């Protein structure tokens, strides 16, 4: 391969029309909450781009993130994004196997400036022997891959925060990419965390499109997540929020409240403490998201979500005292109203019984 084709050339070769490409750019712009006027800019940037080399490393993971990506709902978006990058190594998706596959990775790493995508956490205990690929530990492979990388995207909660492999008691000493950098175990590069178990496919592609268009890391929150997708909590954007505000909660999964679609807070919904785009972007071709299917958010895009107590325990204020408080309030209000009537009567009687005071009334 003497010269990498540009994205436009690549798309033309695959029979994708210019129109379809522009539609993708418009979708990408809206996804990233950019003004519509940015779509042509995206098209221009992406069109001229020599497809950047991307190495996808899968470590201690369940392949759910890749599954999520490949079941993506807007085919143009996801397929196009993959047409725009040169996915030189992805051991689940690539056709090559064995030595040829590893050769592809090593070749891709020769030219600096590639993007590393990681899914899965990295075991560190006992020299990292708990997960190896072609006899190389995940830790060593990440170390080598990062040496000449421009940036790394941690796809999924495992890569971003350690996820389920890191859950107590963490037998493999699993760590996130960021944690390894912080401890100096791998070279430090810019990191974008795209957590979720799995992450929303359009969020994965949206982050990549942003990086490719602007050539820089998007604005991140304190946990390294792009604020354009992780800026709001599920709770803030939840369509059941009005029920929460009115104190209307489902108490069990089959009671009337549940059937009427009331708030799942008391059934353990972690929406208030979870930041992700599920409530707006939704899943499965925009069909729904967990709360819409009747189950509370489990908080999968937050660090240590697996160890944060039961998915079915309310975040705070268990149901019983709430009932008690309500009845106490009602009783208090009733007594108050009763008292006010009695007091009114008493004051009224005092008033109507008023005898105009005269000078005679001043002395005994």
């Amino acid at each position, binding site marked *: 391969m003497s010269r990498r084709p540009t994205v436009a050339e690549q798309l033309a070769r695959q029979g994708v029309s210019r129109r379809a490409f522009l539609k993708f750019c418009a979708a990408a712009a809206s996804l990233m909450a950019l003004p519509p006027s940015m779509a042509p800019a995206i098209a221009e940037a992406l069109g001229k781009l020599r497809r950047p080399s991307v190495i996808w490393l899968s470590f201690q993971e369940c392949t759910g993130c890749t599954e999520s990506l490949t079941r993506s709902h807007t085919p143009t978006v996801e397929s196009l994004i993959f047409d725009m990058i040169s996915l030189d190594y992805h051991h689940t998706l690539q056709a090559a196997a064995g030595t040829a596959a590893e050769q592809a990775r090593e070749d891709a790493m020769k030219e600096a400036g590639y993007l590393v995508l990681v899914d899965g956490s990295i075991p560190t205990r006992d020299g990292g022997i708990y997960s190896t690929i072609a006899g190389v530990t995940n830790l060593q492979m990440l170390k080598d891959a990062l040496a000449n990388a421009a940036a790394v995207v941690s796809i999924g909660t495992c890569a971003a925060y350690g996820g389920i492999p890191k859950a107590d008691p963490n037998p493999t000493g699993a760590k996130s990419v960021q944690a390894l950098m912080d401890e100096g175990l791998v070279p430090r590069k810019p990191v974008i965390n795209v957590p979720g178990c799995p992450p929303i496919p359009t969020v994965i592609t949206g982050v990549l499109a942003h990086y490719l268009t602007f050539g820089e890391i998007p604005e991140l929150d304190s946990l390294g997540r792009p604020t354009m997708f992780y800026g709001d909590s599920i709770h803030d954007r939840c369509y059941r929020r009005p029920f929460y505000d009115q104190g209307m909660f489902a108490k069990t999964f089959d009671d009337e409240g549940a059937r009427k679609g009331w708030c799942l807070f008391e059934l353990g919904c972690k929406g208030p403490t979870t930041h992700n785009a599920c409530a707006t972007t939704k899943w499965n071709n925009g069909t729904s998201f967990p709360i819409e299917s009747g189950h509370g958010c489990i908080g999968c895009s937050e660090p240590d979500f697996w160890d944060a107590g039961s998915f079915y325990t309310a975040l705070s204020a268990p149901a019983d005292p709430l009932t008690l408080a309500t009845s106490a309030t009602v009783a208090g209000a009733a*007594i108050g109203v009763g*008292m006010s009537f009695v*007091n009114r009567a*008493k*004051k009224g009687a*005092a*008033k109507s*019984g*008023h*005898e*105009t*005071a*005269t*000078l*005679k*009334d*001043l*002395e*005994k």
Partner: protein
Amino acid sequence: MSASLDKGVAVLKEMIDAPIASYFESCVHCGLCAEACLFYTETGDPKYTPIHKLEPLRRIYEQEYTLLGRLAKLVGLSKPVTDDELEAWKELVYNSCTLCARCSLVCPVGNDIVYMVRKFREGMAVSGHAPDGLIGAVTRTIEIGSPMGVKLPAVQAQMKHVQDETGIEIPMDKEGAEYMVMLSSMEIMNFPEYLGAIAKIMKQAGKTWTLCSTAFEATNAGIQIGVSDLAKVIVNRIVEGAERLKVKTVISPECGHAYTALRWDGANLIGRPYTFKVLHILEVLDEFRSQGLLKTEGFETTRMTFHDPCQLGRRGGVVEQPRNLMNMVTKDFVEMDDPGKYNWCCGGGGGVSANEEAEELRLEVFKIKKRQLENVGAKTMVTACANCRIVLEEGLEHYQMDIPVVGLTELIAEHLAPDK
């Protein structure tokens, strides 16, 4: 002679309204009102803490209008208010409160404590626990027409005296005049200069004015003793007089509580709006000043200070006007500490000066005024309330301080530019 505890308690039940309930409920017992009260700061005795002066009223509120209070009364935990107790509270409610409202001003939760003292006096008076001095004053006002027993002939004699001295005719019962000028008995008996000053100022300003033969007395002892029914009778005289003469504005004299009674309480007492405006004489003078109708010449060169009457400054909001007027005629005007709405009372307002039982305490708490005066080194004291004036004079005499006290209206009149 029909005052009784039952009558007093019945009146207090009637007096306890939503503001009083919310004040008692929101008191946080911080004690800031004590530091604001001259009776506490000058004696150091905690019984003078303003909110404590209302203790029997608070108990009646709790026992009559709260659930816990009723239960406590039922099982004997909360004792009913007795005649002896009210008699003991007489000193706190009448002798050691001038209704100056400094406590209301500083209360961090906004409790209008003086409003409650005023209401508490309603019950105290009809249960026979008002001081004799005040009973005498209100009796004379109702029966004779003035707390000092001044009758119309005395006013007419002063009118003649002022007419001779100034050469200006003093109008009486002139229908359709713009202003109806009120007097306080003290101005009739002790400070006749006031009437002369008004005559000169009105002449210069070219305004029509009149006295009223049926309503010359502005003071209202009914407000001080705390009996609204009597206060209403007194206010009604003025309202009838002013409406008979069809005047536009009634001018409250240099008297603090007369201003409060007429300006703020009066319309509520009679239950309808007035057909005329009520202004304090200082408001009128400052209005003349701003319209260029008040022309003065020359300046006092001795160091002078101004004592804000509580009802005028703190309760009435007339704070800027006296300063404007002072600056017209003085070169060395100095402010005491806490001027304007934070002023310290002379110690004799709210009926205290008419109450012989309170005299010793009144002179004791005058120490605050004495200190304030000494701090600024003023040689003359100016004020705008005849009651403040007499209390200040007595206090200064008691502490052998040679500082004259003058009324601001007279001071202005002395500097009026002669007609061209």
